């Protein structure tokens, strides 16, 4: 789960990272009041979880509280890559002398939390990684003892932090590490970390991505979820225990298992169709979850056919078939449905599906071809 900048900064501040926190605002009036409390020039920043907000006009300077209100009015309601801005962060403006990139990531290859640091911070960091990899330090930390002081010093020297700020850097590095570990993050980055004209070391922007598997033990962080940025169908899916990602195609997919779900989408594409979603219904495929999955898929008006692909395995195919027929009977909208059930009791499933006039398929390739044909038929 990605956290908004102002939430990420809240967490970093709790761990002693010096930053210009500012205040979130959801209306131009609130933005003005926040700017008045802060005093002096401010930055008004769209709080969205997609990248490239600066280029989209989502970050603006304001020299007064009155101007902050105007800028907030421009930014609030702005569409940035499909997300409508509902919240802005009003933060003190800083005069930047130098910027750095500092990040921590759960590094699957190194099996460690790895520090990534560069003195060439800012939005061009990924370009730097390609053109000048020596300018980036990657330092995996020990999985049991974590960040050590000598490592924090090494990073400071690598970055060329001014001598008088090295101690402050140690505090930032320690705070970032503690925030990462205590919130069970997958990623925590400060970009940029800056030295200001008046010689302060400050985090100007921050991003934290939490490990979804660890959220059950962090109810305080779960409360920071921004539902505004999620598709309503994805919220409904999460509540039903279904893994779902909406796409732009016309063939709704319902599959058990993530790898098989991706494969089903790939084969729909190979057969000349476009998948409307990724949907992993999970183990067991119980009737109520099947019903919820159908509702979520059909909520998308683009869906012209549904492809159900269940590898029975331990689950009995005839039970899944009955669940599908029952769930379908309760739906408001009818679209052609291609059902492929294999594995345990697949033979017993066939008459149940045939009686309900569902299109059946033996192989996955065949199922994908039939779903594509069903969409072509519906369009004619």
């Amino acid at each position, binding site marked *: 789960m990605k956290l908004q900048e102002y939430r990420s900064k809240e967490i970093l501040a709790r761990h002693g990272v010096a930053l210009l926190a500012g205040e979130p605002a959801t209306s131009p009036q609130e933005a003005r009041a926040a700017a008045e409390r802060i005093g002096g020039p401010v930055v008004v920043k769209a709080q969205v979880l997609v990248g490239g907000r600066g280029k989209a006009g989502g970050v603006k300077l304001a020299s007064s509280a009155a101007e902050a209100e105007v800028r907030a009015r421009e930014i609030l309601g702005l569409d940035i890559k499909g997300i409508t801005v509902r919240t802005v962060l009003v933060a003190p403006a800083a005069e930047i002398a130098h910027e750095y990139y500092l990040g921590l990531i759960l590094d699957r290859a190194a099996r460690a939390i790895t520090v990534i640091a560069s003195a060439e911070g800012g939005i061009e960091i990924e370009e730097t990684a390609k053109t000048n990899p020596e300018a980036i330090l990657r330092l995996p930390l020990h999985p049991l003892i974590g960040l050590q002081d000598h490592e924090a010093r090494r990073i400071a020297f690598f970055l060329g932090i001014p001598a008088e700020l090295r101690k402050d850097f140690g505090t930032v590095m320690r705070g970032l590490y503690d925030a990462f570990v205590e919130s069970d993050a997958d990623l925590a980055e400060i*970009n940029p970390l800056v030295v200001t004209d008046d010689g302060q070391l400050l985090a100007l922007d921050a991003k934290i991505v939490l490990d979804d598997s660890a959220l059950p033990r962090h109810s305080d962080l779960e409360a920071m979820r921004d539902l505004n940025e999620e598709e309503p169908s994805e919220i409904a899916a999460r509540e039903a225990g279904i893994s779902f990602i909406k796409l732009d195609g016309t063939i709704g997919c319902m599959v058990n298992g993530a790898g098989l779900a991706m494969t089903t989408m790939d084969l729909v594409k190979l057969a000349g169709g476009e998948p409307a979603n990724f949907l992993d219904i999970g183990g067991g495929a119980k009737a109520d979850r099947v019903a919820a999955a159908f509702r979520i898929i059909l909520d998308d008006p683009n869906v012209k056919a549904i492809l159900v692909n269940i590898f029975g395995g331990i689950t009995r195919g005839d039970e899944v078939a009955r669940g599908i027929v029952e769930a379908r009977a309760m739906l408001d909208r009818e679209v052609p449905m291609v059902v492929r059930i294999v594995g345990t009791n697949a033979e017993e499933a066939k008459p149940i599906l045939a009686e309900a006039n569902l299109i059946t398929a033996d192989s*996955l390739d065949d199922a994908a071809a039939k779903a594509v044909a069903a969409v072509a038929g519906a369009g004619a």
Partner: protein
Amino acid sequence: MSIFVNRDTRLLVQGITGREGEFHSTAMLEYGTSIVAGVTPGKGGQVALGGHVPVFDTVVDAVEQTGANASCIFVPAAFAPDAMLEASAAHIPLVICITEGVPGLDMLRVAHVLRSAGTRLIGPNCPGLTSVGEAKVGIIPGNIHAAGSVGLVSRSGTLTYEVVQAMTDAGIGQTTCVGIGGDPVVGTSFIDVIDAFNQDPETEAIVMIGEIGGDEEEKAAAFCAREVRKPMAGFIAGRTAPPGRRMGHAGAIISGGAGTAESKRTALEAAGIRVADSPSHIPQLLRDAGI
């Protein structure tokens, strides 16, 4: 022959009295796996699976009294890290963790400790493994297999079953099928399994099933190009998956362009591994290689 588990495997099941544990243990027993003990703290002294298997309070007790040499874990995610550590502390050399949803930071620590102790960990969030006709550990349906000479390794669950079924239907049997799990941090990698298959005299060909994310497939391809002379076939799921789930700048820097289906496919093909467009094409690729 087979890898990791066989007729001599004496299996312990942690969480044997839970709903999942009991259900899948019954299926393992029916397959012919030798389950010698179960562990559920507080239920020591009971007998599980219709009187077949003694239950112990601790893994240490179970190992002392039954000589268990492998453990399969079905406990909930909140308790799974502790269960893996308990099995390793009791000197069990092979631990298979089926549990899904174990936090990543816990896994960094657990994987490090188990590796240091010389414990092989498979998973977590994996379907387990089956040495065909010898032992099934985990949740892969037993009836999809046929005995033969192809070793299979996969990051997925049901996609593994799909490929195994396609092979069996085409008359191509398997030695061992291993699901290594799809989490960011798992105990056993593609390379570990491929290396074992490469050294197993009965395994004549190897199938690897990957998916988008991480760079394990790319690394495995490099290993295969160097070390493996047995014919190989592969499949990569996720060509049409949305490129979302971007892990900030750090993720892009770490991955350096690896992780996409195209990158993985290119890496596999460069290593001489034939890559199928559909799981159903894998049997033909194996036939073409003389299997």
